[in-house]
């Protein structure tokens, strides 16, 4: 946050590139970094996915237990999302209980899954009012090079999609696939020097004035949105971000989550 000669030079360099539609890693302003998804990474989890977005790496694991439903949704399972920004992943992350940054990431990923109706929670009910599946979506940042929002969202969707309900372990019948309905995909943008750029790396995040995350569905609808940081957006910028988000969501779904996958 503070100003020092090195960060000033870095800022200048990044802004100059962006003004020419260039990035440090040879991307254009609207381009996202390469994405790889490895599901089934952790065999002790019901489902897991290791996602690399450029150099950012996030591991998500799903664990399920049998428990009581919330009293106002007696016929629905429970989905709980936690994020841990481990000090392993960056010198800026600290040990201890989740700070406001991890809470924001967890809540935005959670909102995408919940509002985008990613999982059919009614199918996670065992006995209405008594027993349901309580499912923990645990997000671990392993290597931090910016844009944890999108890496975490995609890892969570991929982990859930690959997960099996551990019914046999709990003597509740046979294991079945998680009841996935939708694939809400998040796209995050930063505003730097008046330009909107997609999928900021950490050096870009450090000089960004504002951040916008847009989560979209298969039909192009919006299911969640979050603006962050001390800067502002114009209405036009938000429209542009939405347009790019819809496109990115379709790309991810077709390249990584097509039927046969």
């Amino acid at each position, binding site marked *: 946050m503070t100003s020092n000669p090195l960060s000033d030079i870095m800022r200048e360099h990044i802004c100059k590139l962006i003004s020419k539609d260039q990035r440090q890693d040879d991307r254009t302003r609207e381009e996202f970094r390469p994405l790889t998804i490895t599901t089934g990474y952790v065999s002790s989890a019901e489902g897991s996915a290791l996602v690399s977005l450029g150099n950012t790496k996030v591991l998500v694991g799903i664990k399920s237990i049998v428990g009581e439903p919330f009293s106002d949704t007696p016929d629905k399972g429970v989905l709980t999302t936690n994020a841990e920004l481990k000090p392993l992943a960056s010198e800026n992350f600290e040990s201890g209980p989740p700070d406001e940054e991890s809470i924001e990431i967890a809540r935005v990923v959670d909102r995408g899954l919940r509002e985008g109706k990613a999982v059919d929670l009614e199918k996670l009910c065992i006995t209405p009012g008594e027993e349901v599946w309580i499912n923990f979506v645990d997000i671990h940042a392993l290597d931090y090079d910016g844009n944890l929002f999108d890496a975490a969202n995609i890892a969570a969707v991929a982990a859930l999609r690959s997960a099996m309900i551990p019914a046999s372990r709990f003597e509740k019948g046979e294991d079945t696939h998680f009841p996935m309905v939708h694939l809400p995909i998040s796209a995050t943008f930063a505003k730097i020097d008046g330009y909107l750029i997609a999928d900021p790396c950490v050096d870009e995040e450090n000089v960004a004035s504002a951040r916008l995350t847009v989560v979209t569905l298969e039909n192009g*609808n919006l299911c969640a949105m979050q603006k962050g940081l001390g800067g502002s957006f114009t209405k036009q910028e938000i429209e542009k971000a939405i347009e790019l988000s819809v496109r990115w969501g379709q790309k991810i779904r077709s390249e990584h989550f097509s039927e046969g996958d």
Partner: protein
Amino acid sequence: MGGITTDIKLIDEKGLRLDGRRPDELRPLKIEAGVLRRADGSAYVEWGENKVLAAVYGPRECHPRHRQNPARAIVQCNYNMASFSVSDRKRPGPDRRSQEISKIISEALEHVVFTHLFPRTSIDVYIEVLQANAGTRCAGLTAASVALADAGVPMKDLIASCAAGKVADTIILDLRKEEDNFGQADVPLGIVPRTGEIVLLQMDGDLTVEEFNTALTMATDACYRIYETQKDALRQKYCVSKDDIAGDIEEAAENIEESKKENELEQQDDVPDDQEGGQ
């Protein structure tokens, strides 16, 4: 959104809402500046059944020290709901929701405060929700910016904040509790009225891009109306009644009670004008 289904008809045959409002109508809003003695600045907002108090302390020495920024002030907002502000008692202390709201409000306020004038300091904003009925983050941000002005903190402009959303397939303004619980989408917005810049924006639910744009426009228009009420509150304190700066919150509550009906009438006249002016 609550995502809970209901038999309640959220929009009736005449296109009116549970509380009789038109889709683009705000709940009654009253703002009073300078209601607390001890704080450097304060504001009380009564917005529908929401009652929200905001207090500002600072610029002052920043604690803990490692948060200090040598180049500017930091704005630290603490949004808190009283345990008795909601139907089911809320456990005291910050939960994840209030920490998220504190963060996005802090970030929005940083945009309008001239923070570079006060390096190494902190400007602390405390928002207490005394009674809640959906829309408290917008009410809190609206109150906080009046409190900052009341504290004499130099700012570009106030921030005005309001939510739009969707219930029964209709885009509506300023959702109340049932509309939030049983609705389809919610879009809280905060803008800098002079420039139209968007400094707070969240969305959850299910909206087409067109619906989102409609909601954004509707909320933006409302922000301009709210802005007028904010400025009135400051005028009220600093111009109209210069020799009566006392104004405390019970009085505020009473004043508000009295002027509620007046207000509702007023609003039905003023609002459309403002709406056009805002666009």
